[in-house]
């Protein structure tokens, strides 16, 4: 597929450095403390536990977790949010999840492929990378989202 510049359509993260890309199985990029093993997302400079404070290293987070909490956005956010079809009139509400991952960290992300009414604390969720919107050149701008985990 080509974009409006006539070059091959690209899929690019909205902001670099939050998840591995390009990748068949993208993962969120975190920091892990080399001493106390706590995880931080996004990356930190050093372990922010005041009882530790040691060096951190890069680590990738699991993609499956449990829904700890959620909210739902019923009105379109202001800029710099981009509506998915670049058309505010066609915007629809979506959930935002807070998912607890096995690494002992809870991460927020937009909800996809799930009606707001079907969100239930405790349900298994899975992280994927999906289009946020299409930019002016026709490229897909990507973010991480959470969907109900496949059984």
């Amino acid at each position: 597929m080509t974009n409006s510049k006539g070059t091959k359509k690209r899929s690019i993260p909205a902001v670099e450095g939050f998840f591995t890309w390009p990748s068949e199985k993208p993962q969120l990029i975190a920091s892990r403390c080399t001493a106390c093993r706590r995880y931080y997302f996004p990356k930190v400079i050093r372990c922010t536990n005041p009882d530790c404070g040691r060096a951190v290293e890069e680590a990738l987070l699991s993609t499956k977790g449990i829904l700890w909490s959620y909210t739902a956005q019923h009105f379109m956010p202001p800029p710099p949010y981009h509506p998915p079809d670049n058309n505010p009139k066609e915007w629809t509400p979506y959930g935002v999840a807070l998912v607890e991952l096995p690494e002992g960290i809870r991460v927020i992300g937009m909800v996809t492929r799930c009606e707001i009414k079907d969100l239930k604390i405790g349900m298994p969720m899975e992280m994927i990378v999906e289009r946020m919107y299409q930019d002016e050149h026709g490229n897909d701008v990507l973010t991480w989202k959470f969907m109900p985990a496949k059984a």
Partner: protein
Amino acid sequence: MRELAIIGVGMTPFGIFPDKSLVDLGADAIFEALEDAGLDWKDIQIMGCSVSHWHGLSGLLAGNMIASSIGETGIPIFNCSNVCGTGAIVFNNVCAQVSSENFDMGIAVGVDKVPGGFFPAVLSPDIKDYDAVRFHMVGMPNPGYWAMDATRRMYDLGTTHEDYARVKVKNSKHGALNPKARYRKIYTLEEVMNSPMVTYPFRLFEICATSDGAGAVIVCSMEKARKYTNKPIKIAATRTVTRMFGDAAMGGTFFSTQAVPSSESLKEWTAVSKATYEQAGIGPEDLDFVELAENTPWQELAYSEVMGLCKVGEAEKLLREGATQIGGRIPICPSGGFSSFGEATGAMGITQLYEAVVQLRGQAGARQVKGAKVGYCQVQGNLGNTGCTILVK
């Protein structure tokens, strides 16, 4: 360090005032406080002022801009941003200057004109600014993160939608009695419950609006205070903190929390309350009223627990019993709270002090908390910026 007092307070009414600039509003509040204290601008020796994020350089240098419009006396001025915690932190730092005897007379000013609707990101060319990233990649403006905490509270403690709505109803009854409040209508439970869902679980009438407003408070030593007023209000304690590690509460601008139990929440609130009680030499049972940052009903319920007004899980009961209404055991937000004013970010920490002083002087009219002797004010903002003050008659 010497004992301090508040000898003058002023605040503008809150609303939307297209004909009044940031400088106009700040000046109005300052002149009211100066008149209250019987002082002139040239008597002020140090000024602290909130920063506004929405008005370019005038917003960043609000204190200087106001001073250059009312009297260029060359005094030290600091302009300060700690988001919604700003007012308390400005006040705390003015107090530090006056109590250390660097200065005898200080003024703490909070002023803002906040755009309506959801706060947009404070834009910068840096796309990696985390606050902008939550718009770019998560689609979650304020009050989304409080909303997540509010959803979890319903799961953990059984709080209902009706409980949340009742906070608004209660505070609207207080706001109806406050001539400075923007919203003076008394809401019914049905009206709140029938308002559109905005950011689950919060409905439209449960999310405070945004407003224009300003407040000013004049601080001097208790020894000098009696020259100016026969009702000096003692500053018994003022403390500030920031975000503490390992907190389950979802904070704005962040993308994750440590997976600790829900009970490990609002650590900065718990810590600053404790530190402020200690500095004042009192406990929560000694308070006569509380002004807290009730941007949404969740804050009022959760904060009342972590500051020790009741046990965890009992805030709803306190509300239902009428304990937190004027006339009850421990009125919360006798001013009407953020829900009756709308948030003028930098001003809130100062306008809370205005209410507390008016209550402690016995000048609150229909809103008067009878026999008020000890008042508690606390604001909190993003990144855990929290400030707490205890004032005593």
